[in-house]
C-alpha cells in the first residue's frame, strides 16, 4: 500500500530555468545569424587567406557554377524591379505588374531576357528546376550580363559587386565576366572565398 502511494505522487519539474536558457539561445541565434539564400546551383568556393568580411548591404552577387552558367542576385527588392524594367526595355520587353511581383520574390535570377516571361509564368517548383538549366548569356554576341550589371549600378550607386564562383570553373568564363565588368568601368569587386589558414612561416 505504501509503495503504490509513492508511485502515484506526480513529479513536477520546474521548467522555468530551462525556459530561460532556451530563450537566451533563441535570442543569440536571432541576433547573430543571417538567413541562407536559396541558390539554384551548389558552388564550392576556393580557399584564401584573406579575412575581409563581405559588407551587409548593397551587394550585387554574381554566382558562377562549374559549367559556367551565370546567375545574379540583388539584396534590395526595389532595385530588382527597376533593374528588370530597364533591362526589359533594352531588349524590347515589358512586364505586367503581376510578373514583376513574381520576379521580386526570386532570390536569384538568371534566365535569358527573352525567356523571362515564360519563366515567371511557371510554378515555384518548376522555376527551381528550370533555373538550374538556364543562366545569363555572357558571350560577346549577346552580352545580357553587361546590361544587367549596368542597370543595377544605375539604380544603386553604392552597389558592391561580389563574385562567387566554383573552384572548377574554367578561366574562360571568369575572363568573360571580368572583361564585361571592366567594360563598364567596374574595377573593384570582391571574390567570395572560404577561409584557409595562413601558412605558419608567415605568421
Amino acid at each position, binding site marked *: 500500500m505504501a509503495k503504490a502511494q509513492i508511485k502515484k505522487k506526480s513529479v*513536477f519539474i*520546474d*521548467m*522555468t530555468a*530551462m*525556459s530561460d536558457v*532556451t*530563450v537566451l*539561445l*533563441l535570442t543569440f*541565434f*536571432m541576433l*547573430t*545569424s*543571417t*538567413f*541562407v539564400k536559396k541558390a539554384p546551383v551548389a558552388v564550392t*568556393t*576556393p*580557399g*584564401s*587567406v*584573406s*579575412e*575581409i*568580411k*563581405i559588407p551587409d548591404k548593397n551587394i550585387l552577387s554574381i554566382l*558562377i557554377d562549374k559549367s559556367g552558367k551565370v546567375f545574379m542576385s540583388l539584396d534590395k527588392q526595389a532595385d530588382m524591379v527597376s533593374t528588370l524594367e530597364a533591362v526589359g526595355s533594352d531588349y524590347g520587353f515589358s512586364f505586367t505588374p503581376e510578373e514583376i511581383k513574381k520576379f521580386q520574390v526570386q532570390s536569384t535570377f538568371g534566365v535569358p531576357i527573352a525567356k523571362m516571361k515564360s519563366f515567371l509564368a511557371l510554378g515555384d517548383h518548376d522555376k527551381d528546376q528550370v533555373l538550374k538549366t538556364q543562366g545569363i548569356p555572357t558571350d560577346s554576341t549577346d552580352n545580357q550580363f553587361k546590361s544587367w550589371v549596368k542597370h543595377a549600378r544605375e539604380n544603386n550607386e553604392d552597389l558592391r559587386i*561580389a563574385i*562567387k*564562383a*566554383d*573552384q*572548377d*570553373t*574554367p*578561366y*574562360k568564363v*571568369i*575572363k568573360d565576366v*571580368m572583361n564585361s*565588368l*571592366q*567594360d563598364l*568601368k567596374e*574595377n*573593384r*569587386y*570582391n*571574390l*567570395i*572565398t*572560404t*577561409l*584557409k589558414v*595562413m*601558412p605558419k*612561416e*608567415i*605568421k
Partner: protein
Amino acid sequence: MSRNRKTRQKKMNVRVDFTPMVDMNMLLITFFMLCTSLSKPQTMEINMPTKDDKNLKDNDQSKVKASLAVTLLLDKNNKVYYYEGLPNYADKNALKRTSYDANGIRSLLMGKNMRVIEQIKALKLKKTNLQINQAQYDTQASAIKDQKNTPTVIIKATDDSNYKNLVDALDEMQICSISKYVIVPITDGDKLLIKNLESK
C-alpha cells in the same frame, strides 16, 4: 472575514507549467539553426586596371623594372610556369616550371620580397603586443608594401586553367605581401613558350 479570505487567496502559490513554452522555444531554436548561417562569407578584394586608359597603362608598364618583374603563367591541370623580367620570346629557356605548393611560387616570391615580409612580421608582432592599434597597423602595413623596389607580379591565365588557380595565385600575393600585381590576358608568345617547354 472577507478581508481574511482575500489575504489567503493572495498567498496561494501560482505555478505555471513551462513545459509547452520550452517545447516551442526548442522548435524555434532548431529552425534558426537549420535555416541561417552564422558566419559571413570571406572575400578577397581586387582592383582591375581600367580598359580605356591606354596612356596610363603604358606609363605604368614602363615603370615596372625588368629586374623586379615576375610573370606567372597558369595552365591547365594545375600547372604553373614563370619567367623573370620582360618577356623574351626568342629565349626558349626563360620559362620555368613551378607549382602552387609552398616550395613553388611562394618560395620564389618570398625570396624576392624578403625585406617587406620581415618588416610586416615585425609590425604584426607590435600589434600583438598592443603597441599599435589596428588603424595604425593598416596604414603602416600599406606604406611598407607600397615602397619602391618591390617585385611586380604579372598573372596570365590560359583559357584552360580554372578559377581555383587564379584565386591560389592571388592568394600567394597576399601571403607574400606583394602589393603590385596585375591580371592581364595571355599572349600568343606566352602560349608558344609553354608549348615549347612541354614538348621538350
